[in-house]
């Protein structure tokens, strides 16, 4: 009986943990859909956002909410800058150039953060109240539920934004067929800018949620790397795909820790991913790009 509880607990923890990774994965997917770029700077943007939050909350002594707001504004500006000064000039360049550009951005941001805030971890105030939940033998720690709820709300918000708002629809149009979109009077530049902003925001929120349960350090950036498994599994351009994938990977990781070994935690999802690639090259629900001559 306890064994069943243990199992349930690990599964639950996995599911709850998946909220954050889904949020981060979303920021990758948004950019890929909008611009067909895998944004390797996503982690650094996330980290920068978290540091801005720290600055607001600790250095400027603001209310956490206000600090969060500041960091969101800051990141929007950064995203606009990245889009305008790095990616727009590279429009039409081969994939590798654009990929490398995002890596360059990553290095640039990382270095700057270390120059400004240093490398050692900095204490950050909590954003959410912690309410651990006990249910029979199953026990869920404080931060998990809050993070999950917030992230799912945010994801839902983003999805609805794309489905129903005018801007969202225009952005989707741009993503699927820029030329037609343009000819229909959609401001593509604006749409792409918006894509980057949105991606930056989701990243920042994820980052802030993560660091608000302790401290922020440059190591945060590497979290984004560990989300790649989710992104590949779900498919670079499928929101539903990555949500599904993050649930799977989350449970997978949790069970790995619970029953196999914490060491495997990182690598196990990637093994699964490689296996999946053999069967479904474009992930669970990524769209297969139709080749034309």
């Amino acid at each position: 009986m306890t064994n069943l509880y243990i199992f349930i607990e690990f599964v639950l923890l996995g599911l709850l943990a998946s909220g954050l990774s889904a949020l981060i994965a979303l920021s990758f997917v948004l950019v890929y859909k909008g611009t067909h770029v895998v944004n390797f700077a996503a982690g650094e943007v996330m980290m920068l956002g978290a540091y801005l939050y720290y600055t607001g909350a600790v250095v400027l002594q603001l209310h956490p909410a206000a600090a969060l707001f500041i960091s969101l504004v800051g990141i929007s500006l950064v995203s606009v800058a990245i889009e305008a000064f790095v990616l727009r000039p590279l429009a039409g360049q081969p994939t590798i150039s654009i990929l490398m550009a995002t890596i360059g951005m990553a290095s640039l941001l990382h270095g700057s953060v270390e120059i400004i805030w240093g490398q050692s971890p900095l204490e950050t105030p909590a954003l959410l109240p912690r309410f651990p939940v006990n249910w029979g033998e199953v026990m869920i720690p404080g931060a998990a539920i809050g993070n999950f709820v917030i992230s799912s709300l945010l994801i839902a918000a983003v999805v609805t934004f794309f489905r129903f708002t005018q801007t969202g629809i225009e952005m989707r149009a741009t993503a699927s067929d820029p030329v037609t979109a343009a000819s229909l009077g959609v401001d593509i530049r604006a749409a792409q800018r918006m894509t980057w902003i949105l991606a930056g925001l989701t990243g920042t929120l994820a980052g802030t949620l993560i660091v608000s349960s302790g401290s922020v350090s440059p190591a945060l950036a590497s979290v984004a790397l560990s989300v790649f498994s989710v992104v590949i599994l779900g498919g670079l351009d499928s929101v539903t795909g990555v949500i599904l994938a993050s649930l799977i990977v989350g449970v997978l990781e949790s069970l790995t820790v619970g029953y196999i070994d914490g060491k495997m935690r990182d690598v196990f999802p990637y093994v699964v991913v490689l296996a999946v690639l053999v069967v479904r090259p474009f992930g669970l629900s990524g769209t297969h790009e139709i080749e034309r001559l």
Partner: protein
Amino acid sequence: MTRNRRQVLKTAGATALLGASAWRPAFAKDKADIVIGAAHPMTGFMSFAGVASNYAMGDYINWRNQSGGVLGHKIRYVGEDSAYKVDQGVAVVKKMIASEKPSFIFLDGSPLSKAVARDVLATGTVMTGGFSSSEALLDQTLYPHHFLSGPTFGATCQILMEYIGRIAKASGNVPKIALVTSDQEWGTESNFHLKARAEKLGLPIVQDIVTKPTGVDVTSEVAKLRRSKPDIVIFQGYIMNPVPEFVRQMREAGINAQVMSTTYGVDRIMYDALAKNGERLTGVMPYRYGYDTDSKMMTTMREYVAKVRPQQESISLFYIHAWLTGMIFCEVAERCIKANKNLTLPNMKAALESIKDWDTGGLTGLLADLSTHQIKSGRVYSYDPASKRMEPASGWIRV
């Protein structure tokens, strides 16, 4: 082809040897400088340690020079940044050996120590010390020129387990121990020794969890830990994160086990972070803490820092580690000069191994014994909320 290539190789080798043995003055006679080099991880993710260690060596050597150097020989210090990257570190060290001809080099950790070992040995005139307390570096065939300015990870773990063992004997009830280990050399090596020692002392290890070094989400790990209801949780291989969050979740999960760690895991950054959540860290420290007033060398250190760098608010473990390494370098040099010997590796090695009951000015508590290329002693400290400091929980233990 082969023949003349071989010739080239020969000549090349010859020039290399010349390069190495070019300087050979009867050292003790003219008061030649003693050169101490260092490759500190001043940037990158180890920078918090590297910046401190760089300051420490500079400070110690200046201080030592002000008080007459080593028997009248001035000491020259060359500190460079290795960024904790092997490539850069090796480049730095090679350049140093070539241009500065140092007798001693401080290295940023075991990867670099291993990578430069061959070149250092080839010179035959260089001794190295530095960070990392990996047992591997005591291998006398591969690294006869290297020493650790403290106990190996294994020794520290031994000390901790001995302490736990004594408590157990005293109280009569055997504590259930859980290990949480970071997946890197320092963590895994300690983990191994902890288990070995626990088995020897009949202390039960009820849970053995390994996490990635930069683990952010630890909920599953805590859940796993919860089932085994430990009385003591020993964290190994963490400077700080994710320990505070981990412990916080432990408490939420109703685990009120004692939190323990060793060496790099008991520095201020760790015990402060834990104290913020009202936690009290217990752990093994190979040296005294920077605020300790019972050690005259520590007092000297504090005063010097206060003089040259008033803004520095505390003295970190890494600072003390590097300062002590500087002291050992100078001691070795001093013993060679006293014996009127050149600073060649054999002489320096002999000098190092002759250091048996050496007064480190109290930094190491007991008189230091470096005959085995390490100082196998330490003391258990416990956090005291009143003084907001780690206070001794045991006497100095030598293993």
